[in-house]
């Protein structure tokens, strides 16, 4: 029989220092009150936008088995004249288990200020890591790029927890895609800017 659980040693492996620390005070988390929580103008964005020139979007992620939830908010600076699109700001609201919280925190550290292409590459590598069933990934460049996120290798052994680790990354991908597609077809914010 496959053993999907863990003994004490596995437990330490899953909950490494980096994860426990990040989960206690995760980066990028914004409070409920200070930053809204109501979509007052119906544009799908609830967290206050800081960079007016950016394309803002949010993605709400929910894990129905355990109730982890996060709204990931991005502000993307569109690349001018063929330049790269940049993730100017990424913050989130939500709550969940330590795996989901730590993964959100480390994801924010990795993609904040980076190009969208780089963030998407990281997300793809992280997914490969999480699908590795504990084996990890061989690509050393990807390992270096993922940095702290490599600590989730231990989590990838546990099918019930992979979703927790992926929650933030999925939200980042979805919100960035939404920001860019809204911008490309001329979203409300962009049009108002230009008017």
């Amino acid at each position, binding site marked *: 029989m496959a*053993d999907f*659980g*863990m*003994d*004490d040693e*596995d*437990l330490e492996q*899953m*909950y490494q220092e980096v994860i*426990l620390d990040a*989960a*206690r005070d995760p980066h990028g988390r914004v409070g409920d009150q200070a930053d809204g929580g109501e979509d007052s103008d119906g544009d799908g964005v609830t967290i206050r936008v800081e960079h007016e020139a950016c394309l803002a979007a949010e993605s709400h992620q929910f894990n129905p*088995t*355990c*109730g*982890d*939830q996060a709204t990931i908010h991005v502000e993307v600076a569109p690349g001018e004249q063929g330049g790269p699109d940049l993730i100017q700001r990424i913050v989130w609201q939500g*709550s*969940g*288990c*330590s*795996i989901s919280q730590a993964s959100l925190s480390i994801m924010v550290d990795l993609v904040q200020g980076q190009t969208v292409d780089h963030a998407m590459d990281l997300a793809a590598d992280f997914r490969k890591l999480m699908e590795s069933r504990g084996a990890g990934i061989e690509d050393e460049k990807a390992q270096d790029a993922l940095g702290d996120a490599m600590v989730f290798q231990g989590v990838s052994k*546990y099918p019930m*927890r992979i979703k*927790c680790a992926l929650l933030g990354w999925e939200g980042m991908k979805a919100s960035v895609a939404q920001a860019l597609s809204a911008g490309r077809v001329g979203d409300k914010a962009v049009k108002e800017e230009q008017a």
Partner: protein
Amino acid sequence: MVIDDSIRQQFPILDQQVHGHPMVYLDSAATAQKPLAVIDAVRDFYLKDNAGVHRGAHELAARSTMAFEHARSRVAALVGAEGQEGGEEIVVTAGATAALNLLATAFGNASLGRGGKAAQRFALKPGDEVVVSKAEHHSVLLPFQELCYRTGAVLKSFDLDPDGRVLADTADQVITERTKVVAVTHVSNVTGAITDIKPIVRRAHQVGALVVLDVCQSVPHLPIDLHAMDVDFAAWSAHKMYGPTGVGFLYGRRELLEALPPASFGGSMVELAYLDRPASYMDPPARFEAGTQPVAQMIGAGVAADWLMDLGMENVAEHEKAIAIGLLRVGELDGVRILGPTTPEDRIGTVAFDVQGVHPHDVGQYVDSRGIAIRVGHHCAQPVHRHFGLMASNRASTGVYNTVADTDALLDAVSGVRRFFRVA
């Protein structure tokens, strides 16, 4: 009969190591483990008697049909329902969820005029009310909420006291002349609290409303007499009462089942079928049992019912109360809050708790590493978690095979959780 540790010998699954520890199973509210008597009955049936029921005339078909109907009568006996042929009050379904959906769909069909005049007592129209409670499992809440959306009826709910117990003494206010259906849980699968159904039944019947009781969490743990409780319908699953998965029950007072229109259509529920005229349907319970039935599972369920009656439900309740007292001590640990009554009166041994600062997913992982199985999440009951200001919780629940050593193991494990996750 006093239930002691020797009962565990009837549950071979309990005798295993998990992650280097003796397994402690505290998740019987999700599903109970099966005694050998049930496992053997299912195996024997497949070895010797397997055939469909109520179809065909060969020897095996006859044996299967007899065994199936015998099982129905044993299940009826367990809950004080009528089991005699021609008076059956137990409908076999795929489970509690299927039973509740069957009932809500049948009410919906009656609301569309199906089932003729006799079925009008189940019909809902705009402005009518359906009452549930904030402690409902989604399997009660959602079928009846959808029924309201389909018919224009209004969904109302009983509030809960700070312990999460249904405020039954507000029945006179919550249930009104417009109320047609009251669907409530007998025992919450989160708080473990037993609902005081007397005032609810009294008031419902005073205004002519039907009472639907979710007995999923009471039948396996308490003596139940549905006639004495005077409810109109009830639903539960075999797998929580030591029987197989894939089978459950809808109880209905005979007179009501006879008036209720069918909800699921197909083979074995119809007397005469035509291409150009409506069919005529069979009497209950067959009217509600379309398609090939879960025969082996039902036979296992009948054996489970007998097995429980042999133990004596009073004895089961008494044994589990002792275990519940052990589990409730978890509330004395630093940073641990019980969601539900903190004393053993009027509750069963299903104990949900919150560990301050540690998400249930992490608590579950931690105690699992010590070989202990509890449930974490919202347990398919989100509104009651909202009542406690939470999204999810941890839940330990008892079965006849649990021991005080099991509760000690849980307490020991939970007491280490906050330190491990650096919140204490």
